[in-house]
């Protein structure tokens, strides 16, 4: 898998002494969608801001498509589009002018038809001559995205793109992300909505207190999520399970009074009926049963709790 972004030992200590990012290592593949999931204050914006050149790193290095973000900043930044978390736009400027401005800023020659396509994609074409201050909040977010796409970026950072936006814009945003992915654009989005990570991401990174706790294939996480555990409490303690039960891959709990069975809720047969029958024919008496499910939410909550 080719790397698009490589982050090595990246740290940020703000002037206040606040350690916002603590020796983060992260590799992002070309063409993938990575969702950075983390609570407020986890360091998501700080991480993105450093890659984009808005915050000075305290330590560590970052390269984008092989270009170092400090020594080769021109080549690195030309590839990057950023949709910031906070809406910041020139209030008196017209929509189309501010989008054309962005394209020029990134060193690209004017291209009317490309800008038109971007504005149409974001349902902004009818509003192109409207001064930004007359737009609704959702429309302003669309303008931010249009600006980020104005220079045909190969990497797109979306910092909490759907925080507080209406359903329609959220759906549009997801559609645009899918289209960009189809074009081979690498996308990094931060969010604290688990559903968003589930809907869009190829991989999910969980970040908390300035550290990346896990970066995992989403399907793998989903699989873990689809797994349930059945705990069977027995009336007697067992030292060793009989051979007859080997096919169930049972685990013996440390108290030796219960066995744990993992099964896939999405599978056609869970195997529970057979297991219970086999247990009783092996002479075990059952005291209680208990099931538990691990969701991405659980994994997430588990990871980020202090």
């Amino acid at each position: 898998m080719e790397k698009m972004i490589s982050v090595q030992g990246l740290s940020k200590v703000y002037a206040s002494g606040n350690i916002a990012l603590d020796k983060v290592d992260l590799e992002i593949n070309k063409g993938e969608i990575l969702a950075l999931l983390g609570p407020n204050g986890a360091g998501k914006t700080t991480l993105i801001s450093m890659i984009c050149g808005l915050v000075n790193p305290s330590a560590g290095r970052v390269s984008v498509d092989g270009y170092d973000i400090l020594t080769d900043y021109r080549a690195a930044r030309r590839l990057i589009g950023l949709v910031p978390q906070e809406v910041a736009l020139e209030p008196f400027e017209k929509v189309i002018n501010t989008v054309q401005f962005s394209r020029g800023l990134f060193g690209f020659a004017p291209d009317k038809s490309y800008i038109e396509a971007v504005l149409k994609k974001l349902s902004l074409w009818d509003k192109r001559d409207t001064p930004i201050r007359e737009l609704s909040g959702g429309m302003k977010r669309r303008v931010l995205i249009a600006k980020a796409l104005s220079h045909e970026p190969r990497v797109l950072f979306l910092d909490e793109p759907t925080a507080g936006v209406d359903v329609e814009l959220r759906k549009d945003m997801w559609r645009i992300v899918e289209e960009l992915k189809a074009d081979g654009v690498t996308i990094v989005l931060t969010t604290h909505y688990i559903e968003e990570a589930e809907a869009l991401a190829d991989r999910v990174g969980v970040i908390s207190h300035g550290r990346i706790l896990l970066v995992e294939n989403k399907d793998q996480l989903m699989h873990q999520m689809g797994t349930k555990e059945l705990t069977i409490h027995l009336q007697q303690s067992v030292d060793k399970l009989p051979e007859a039960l080997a096919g169930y891959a049972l685990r013996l709990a440390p108290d030796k009074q219960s066995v744990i069975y993992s099964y896939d809720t999405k599978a056609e047969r869970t195997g529970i009926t057979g297991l219970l029958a086999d247990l009783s024919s092996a002479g075990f008496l059952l005291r209680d049963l208990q099931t538990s499910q691990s969701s991405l939410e659980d994994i997430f909550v588990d990871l980020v709790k202090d």
Partner: protein
Amino acid sequence: MNLHAVKAIYFFEMARTFRTLLQSIISPVISTALYFIVFGSAIGSRMVAIDGVSYGAFIVPGLIMLTVLMQSVTNASFGIYFPKFIGTIYEPLSAPVSYLEMLVGYVGAAATKSMIIGLIILATSFLFVPLQIAHPVWMVAFLALTCVSFSLLGFIIGICARNFEQLNLVPALIITPLVFLGGSFYSISMLPPFWQTATLFNPVVYLVSGFRWAFFDTADVAVTYSLMAIALFSLLFVAVISVIFKTGYRLKP
């Protein structure tokens, strides 16, 4: 060299200027007219000619300088402070743009605006006093250099200012006194010897003197000194700005 970016910043800033051009022009033109009425006609009629130039004409270069300096500092400081204030500065800072390119865009736009205003005031002056310009090319050159060097200073002020009060205070506290003590309305040679020496540390003296030389062919300090002084100030300002960008002072946390 990212020429597209320089053009983008320059024209974006000029568009801001043209949206408010009428306001930007009316106020300096009115105040200049008032100066002419008060100093030129009312007081000037009782003043002797300085270096063979009627007082009304003598103050024209100083008046233009006064407005152009204030405009340069105000335009340039506001031009960079505003994007910082509303947050849009994130874009040029994350773009493949060097600080020199940013500088050319922002400072170039601010300097152009003050240049336009300076020329409009010059045109207004012709309505009040008879004027000839001895070295027209040098006149324009001095005007342009002044616009650029004080727009550079304004850019520094705009980056360093923490709020709108500071943004307004610095020009009022520093620029206005420098201009009034810089020989805008009198010849340095009219001052007592101590103050003649003291004023040589005032950058505005060199600007006004050089500018006045371009009009009347008489100067308080030699023209070459004026040119050297402007070049020196500009270099100093650029050096300060390069340090600001290298460290990210007040731009990047």
